[in-house]
C-alpha cells in the first residue's frame, strides 16, 4: 500500500502524498468516455475495498451501514478529511473524474489512517464520472448530504449542458437523496452561483434552507474554508456564493 521508502511522491515524515507529484489541470472533459470500472448497481459497490476496517469481508449482504455523504468533484479531498472527523459514524465518499487527483486523495487517506489509528476509516474516494453513474453507486434515498464545491463553471453557453448542476441532473440527485437530505453548493463565479440557485429554485423536489438553519449547520462553514479551492479564493480576497437546498417530497 504505502511505499515511503525511496518514493518521492510520499513525504517520508508525514506519510502523506506530496501534491506537486499529483498536479492535474483543473478541467476535465465529462463527455469523454474514460475507461474505469463502474459497479453494475449499488449492491455491487465493494464496501470492503473502501472501508476495510469497517467491512473486513468482501461479501456483505445486507450491510447495516451505507454511504451517506457524497462529495461530487472532491478534488484534493479537503472537505472529506474535515467531514471525516466531524461525523465519525458516517460513511462518506468522494467522486472525482481526474485520475491523478483521485490517486492523491487515496494516498492521503491511507497516510492519515496509518498516522491516526482508528480514524479516517469512514472516508474513501472513487474515480468516476458522477454525471453518468451516480445511480450505479447509490440507492434511492440513500444519501443525506451531497456536496458540489467549486464546480467547473463551463463559461460558454454552448457548454452549459456540461455543468454538474442542471435541471435534468437534479432529478438524479433528488433520487439518491433522502427526503430531508441536503445539497450544498458553493462557487466563486457569480454567474454560476445564480445558475445553480435558479436550477434548484425551479426544481419541485428542493426547497431552500432558512437563514437560521444555515447558521446552525456546522457543515456550512466548511464549504468555504475546508477545501484547497476555497482557501485559494480566500487568499485572493474573492467572494463566494453559497446555495444550500433541502430535498422535499413534491406537493402533488
Amino acid at each position, binding site marked *: 500500500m504505502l511505499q515511503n521508502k525511496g518514493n518521492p511522491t510520499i513525504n517520508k515524515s508525514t506519510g502523506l502524498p506530496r501534491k506537486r507529484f499529483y498536479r492535474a489541470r483543473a478541467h476535465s472533459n465529462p463527455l469523454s468516455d474514460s475507461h474505469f470500472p463502474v459497479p453494475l448497481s449499488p449492491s455491487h459497490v465493494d464496501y470492503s475495498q473502501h472501508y476495510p476496517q469497517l467491512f473486513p469481508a468482501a461479501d456483505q449482504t445486507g450491510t447495516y451501514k451505507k454511504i451517506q455523504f457524497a462529495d461530487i468533484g472532491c478534488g484534493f479531498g479537503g472537505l472529506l478529511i474535515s467531514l471525516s472527523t466531524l461525523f465519525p459514524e458516517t460513511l462518506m465518499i468522494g467522486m472525482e473524474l481526474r485520475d491523478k487527483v483521485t490517486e492523491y486523495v487515496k494516498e492521503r487517506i491511507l497516510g492519515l489512517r496509518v498516522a491516526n489509528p482508528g480514524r479516517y476509516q469512514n472516508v474513501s474516494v472513487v474515480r468516476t464520472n458522477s454525471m453518468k453513474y451516480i445511480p450505479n453507486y447509490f440507492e434511492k434515498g440513500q444519501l443525506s448530504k451531497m456536496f458540489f464545491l467549486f464546480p467547473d463553471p463551463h463559461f460558454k453557453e454552448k457548454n452549459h449542458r456540461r455543468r454538474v448542476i442542471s435541471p*435534468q441532473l437534479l432529478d438524479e440527485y433528488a433520487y439518491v437523496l433522502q427526503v430531508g437530505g441536503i445539497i450544498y453548493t458553493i462557487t466563486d463565479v457569480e454567474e454560476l452561483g445564480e445558475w445553480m440557485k435558479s436550477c434548484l429554485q425551479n426544481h419541485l423536489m428542493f426547497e431552500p434552507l432558512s437563514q437560521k438553519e444555515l447558521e446552525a449547520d456546522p457543515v456550512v462553514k466548511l464549504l468555504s474554508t475546508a477545501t484547497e479551492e476555497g482557501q485559494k479564493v480566500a487568499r485572493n480576497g474573492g467572494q463566494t456564493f453559497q446555495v444550500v437546498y433541502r430535498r422535499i417530497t413534491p406537493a402533488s
Partner: protein
Amino acid sequence: MEGTKMDARVDECERDDGNTQEDAPMEESEQNNKDMEVAPALVSVHPTQSSVAVALGSDLRVFNLLDNSAVSLMDESGGAYHNDSIRCIKYGTNGKLFVSAGDDKLVKVWSTDCWRCISTVVSEKRVSAVAISNDGLHVCFADKFGVVWVVDLPGFDGTKASLNQKAVPLLAHYCSIITSLEFSPDGRFIVSADRDFKIRVTVFPKKPLDGAHEIQSFCLGHTEFVSCLAFICTPDSPQGILVSGGGDSTVRMWDIISGSLLDTCEVGTKVEPNATEGNCSTVTNICTIPECTLIAVAIQSLRGIMLLTCDLSSRTLSVSKVVSIDGENFVPTSLGSSISGGLLWMVTGASKFRGSDVSSLSRVKVISGFKKSNPNASEQEPTVLADSEIPGGAKLLEKLQGSISIDEKVFLAAADAVKTAMCNLLIKKQYSDEKREFRKRTRNDKKSKQ
C-alpha cells in the same frame, strides 16, 4: 464491469463496418456530408390491426387492412415527408395516432383515420426513440444526446395541421443515446433505456411540460447497452412487468416500482450455433404477444425468432422455442404485434446498400398460432405464414415491400447491410483521430432558429 462498450463479439461487426463507414472518409464526407446512413427496416402494427406500417430509410409505407388498400400519406404541415432515415415509428395505444421520427430531426405525428400529418416537431438532434402517451395527449421523443422531449398534441379535430410545435425537455440521460422509450400500461410511468446499460423509470406527471422530475427507480443489471423495452400486461400489476433486451444477449424482467431484477434469460446460450452466423447474439428487438404471456425476441444473426414464456406467479422467464424461418435469409430487424390480432409481424431489411441494382430491401413475414392461455385450446404451434396467408395478401406485400417477391440475390446483398445497420445503431463508433477532428469541424448541431 468495464466501462468499454466493445467486446470480441461486436469487433466482428465493427470490422465489417469498415467498408461502408471508415474507409475513404474524406471523399464521401466532402461530396455529401449528409449521406444517408444504412438504416434497418422497421414495422409497427395498429393496436386493433386496422393497419400496418413499415419504414425503410426515409420511406414510410402504410397498408390499411380494413379495406385492403395501400395508404397515401398526406403531409401538408410543411415538411415534404421525411428526408432522411426514419429511426422509430409507433402507434399510440388508443389507436388514433401514429408517430415517425429519425435522422432528419423531424417528429411527425399522423392521424390514423385519414393518414394526414397533423403535426411536425423539429428536434435539435437526430431522434432515436419515440412514444405516445396512452391518453394520446403527448408525444415524447428522445434525441441522440440523451434528452427526452415532450410536446403537446393539438386539440384533436383532425383539421388544422401545425408546424413547429415547440417541444420542451422532459428528462435526460446524461450523454447517453436513448434506445427505447415506453409508457407503462397504466400510463403512470415513462421508461427510458440507454446505451450505457441503464433503464430509468420516471413518474409521468400531470403536467409533462414542466418536466418529469420524480424518478421512480433505475433498473440496473444489463452488462451491455439496452436495445429494446416492452411491457407485459398483468391483472395484478396495473403498471405491468417490464421486459428488456440488450447487447449482453439477455432478456430481463423487472419490477418497475422498485427497480428490482425479477429474472434474466440468457438467450445467447440458448441459440444453436448453426442458427446464427458467427457469435453475434445481441438482442435487437422484443415484442410481447398480448393475451398470452409470450415474448418474441429478435436476435442478431438468428434467422427467425425466439419465444420466451413469462410465468406470472413465479415471475420467471424461460425459453419456449425457437421459430426458424426456412427457405429465406430472414433475420428480423423489427417486430410488431397488435393487442388483439394474435399475430406477430416481422420485417427485415435495410435502406441504401450497395452491391445490387436494388438499393434497399424490405421483406415482411407473419407468425401465427400462439397458444392462448386457455388450457382447452388445441395444441397450436406457432407457424410462419406463407405469403398468401398473410392478412392483406399480395397487395400488402406489394405496398410494404415495394414488390411482391424478392430475389435471393437482393437478400444476399442486403445481409451485410442489415448487419451493419443494426451495428451502427447500437455500437459506439470508434473514429480515427483525423476523422474525429474532421467531424468536429463540420459538426452542425446549432439550435434551429424559430
